[in-house]
């Protein structure tokens, strides 16, 4: 019963039993739409998320459909948005707040670190925090200052948070649904430079039809797993491209870039595996060990500054697990230890194809000194 539709903007019915072609922005919108429909306690709040539908239109149409009380604009204050979400969670709601851009999560750090992440612990489990904070994240869109930040290392270091970042529309749809249904706080980092990139999305309704064995051309169970729709698929990392010679580890917008790099490397006979980490906390250490155990070489790529970035953690996990078989130290290709620059310089800052290829080369050519 499923079919491939091309949907250029919002307006997909929730529960659509179809494989849809959606942008990441549209996939997230559909996920929120379905979540609001299935869970009467779900709320969406933030700056401009109501009438406007968000500056990236991720919440477009939701207020009109689910009511201005469930999808609402707040005053312009991020600590307020988080603090209010915490209180709403204490009252039994499942808030999905948004901060408009990564850099504006900083004013809310006190509420995120000291409150959202600790309330369950502090209250000994009596006051859970089923809150998913959506953060349009990372750079690449020539935006003003503070609109291109990568906060994953900060969030991943905070006990009590779970952190996830989708790389494509299917991941966006599936991971957002998984996150919002969790009983714990999740930071959901949306790669804003990928909002308008399209991809096929198997909806849950379509997947259920598929497993219901209705005889139609439903996606196979392998397709569904590949799409990350099974529970197991949703809690760990994902092989975005299998390969034998070297593992590229990435998340968010860097996954697509690494897939490009892998194609280029293939032309030189280098078979690169691309591991989409997805969950940045907890990190799927087993997936890292399995992949690098096989390839024996790894490069981790991220946009955030190098020092104390999440790349260090990923590299160290790999080293801990694979030290005996690693052929070279894990290489990091990252942003520099400089403030995220203005548009003219952002291509100099974000790991580009050349720099990733150089990183791969260094690993491949490594000789014990």
């Amino acid at each position, binding site marked *: 019963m499923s079919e491939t539709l091309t949907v250029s903007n919002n307006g997909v019915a929730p529960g659509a039993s179809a494989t849809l072609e959606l942008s990441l922005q549209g996939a997230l919108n559909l996920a929120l739409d379905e979540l609001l429909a299935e869970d*009467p306690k779900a*709320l969406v709040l933030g700056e401009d998320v109501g009438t406007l539908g968000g500056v990236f239109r991720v919440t477009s149409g939701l207020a009109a459909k689910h009511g201005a*009380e*469930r999808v609402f604009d*707040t*005053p312009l*204050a991020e*600590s*307020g948005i*988080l*603090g*209010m*979400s*915490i*209180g*709403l*969670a*204490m*009252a*039994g*709601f499942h808030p999905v707040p948004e901060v408009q851009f990564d850099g504006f999560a900083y004013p809310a750090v*006190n*509420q995120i670190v*000291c*409150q959202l992440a600790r*309330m*369950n*612990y*502090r*209250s*000994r*489990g*009596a*006051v*859970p925090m089923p809150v998913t904070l959506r953060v349009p994240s990372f750079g690449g869109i020539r935006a003003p200052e503070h609109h291109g930040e990568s906060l994953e290392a900060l969030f991943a270091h905070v*006990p*009590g948070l*779970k952190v996830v970042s989708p790389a494509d529309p299917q991941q966006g749809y599936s991971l957002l649904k998984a996150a919002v249904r*969790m*009983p*714990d706080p999740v930071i959901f980092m949306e790669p804003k430079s990928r909002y308008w990139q399209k991809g096929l999305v198997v909806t849950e309704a379509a997947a259920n039809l598929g497993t219901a064995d209705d005889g139609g051309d439903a996606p196979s169970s392998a397709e569904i797993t590949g799409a990350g729709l099974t529970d197991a698929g949703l809690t760990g990392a994902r092989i975005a491209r299998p390969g034998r010679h070297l593992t590229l580890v990435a998340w968010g917008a860097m996954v697509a870039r690494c897939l490009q790099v892998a194609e280029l490397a293939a032309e030189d006979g280098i078979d690169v595996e691309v591991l989409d980490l997805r969950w940045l906390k*907890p*990190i799927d*250490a087993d997936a890292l060990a399995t992949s690098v155990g096989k390839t024996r070489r790894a490069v981790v790529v991220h946009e955030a500054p190098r020092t104390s970035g999440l790349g260090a953690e990923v590299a160290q996990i790999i080293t801990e697990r694979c030290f005996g078989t690693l052929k070279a130290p894990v290489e990091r290709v990252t942003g520099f230890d400089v403030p995220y620059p203005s548009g003219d310089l952002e291509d100099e800052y974000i790991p580009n194809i050349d720099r990733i290829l150089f990183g791969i080369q260094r690993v491949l050519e490594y000789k014990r000194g």
Partner: protein
Amino acid sequence: MQTLGTRPTTAGRAGLAGAPREPLPELPAVEAATGAELAELYRLMTAVRQLDVAAISWQRQGILPAYAPELGQEAAQVGSALALDPARDFAFPTYRELGVARAFGVDMVEYMSTHKATWHGGLWDAAATHLAPIQAVVAGSVLHAVGWAHGQTLEARSAANGPANSAAGSADGLPVAITYLGDGASSQGDVHEAMNFAAVFKAPVVFFVQNNGWAISVPTEKQVAGGSVAARGAGYGIPAVQVDGNDAAAVLEATRRAVAHARAGHGPAIVEAMTYRRGPHATSDDPGRYRSLDEEREDAGADPIARLRERILAEGVATEAALAEADAAAAAEAEALRLGVIALGPRPGAEMFDLVFQEPTDELKRQKAAWREESEHE
């Protein structure tokens, strides 16, 4: 505020200034405290006093590693808490609200556990008692109270639209949140965000400020520009009342008015109780470095418990004997609490790992296993 210029051009739009500002709503009048209520205030206040004074001595004896006394704030705490209905309302304390916890019926050993360094938030069940865990960030919970309160509004609205069997939003009005903060805490940006959000959403929340003259060593006059936190309410269109915080009946009445306003769906209210921190900030503090005993005596004024006692006797609400009985009950309670606190053992280390999430991660399970192997002392 003055207005200059011919006429603000955007006056045409509702709510934009230039249009005369709406007058502040009046807080509804409430009945004065009854004799029975005065007696109840006394019973609670004398209990709180004795527990508090005892806790200081327990700290000296090494039973508690540290303690933050509320000496002198019994009227403000008990008076405000009695204005609430713990069955439906929700209170958000700081680290100094022993009196509120006692009035809400929280188990006192579970409460004291935070000062015994057993568990940061305290051991009581916040969801069951409607008293949020201890909050060590000043002003940390003001926004939570606004969010919780707005949740009540949402529940009431959906009940009004939905099946009739929901209790919220009934004729009794809305459940109300009360958030406690100090004069020092009032300087935090979160307080502004909370008041603005509360007013924008008309959330049923009461901001209860205990202005006790000090934030550790910094006196209110170097902290609160303009001299009053309640005075800030007008800027948000929030009605506010400043009350003699050492007059328990006045605090009860002021808080009741604020709660009635919020319960009726008219939005937030502020109560500023002017009181005095008679003790040190905490047992580690040395007030002699920033105020003299003479100043303390002069600024503290009459003891709130002595004042209530005087009034009760003057009005014949209760006899000396009845009050002495309350004092004796309080002393017995303190002794029972002492034994309970001494008996309170440390929590098992495994809870560090088990209580982080509702759904613990594999990584935490690994860390817990490693901890068991390397450090568990059982």
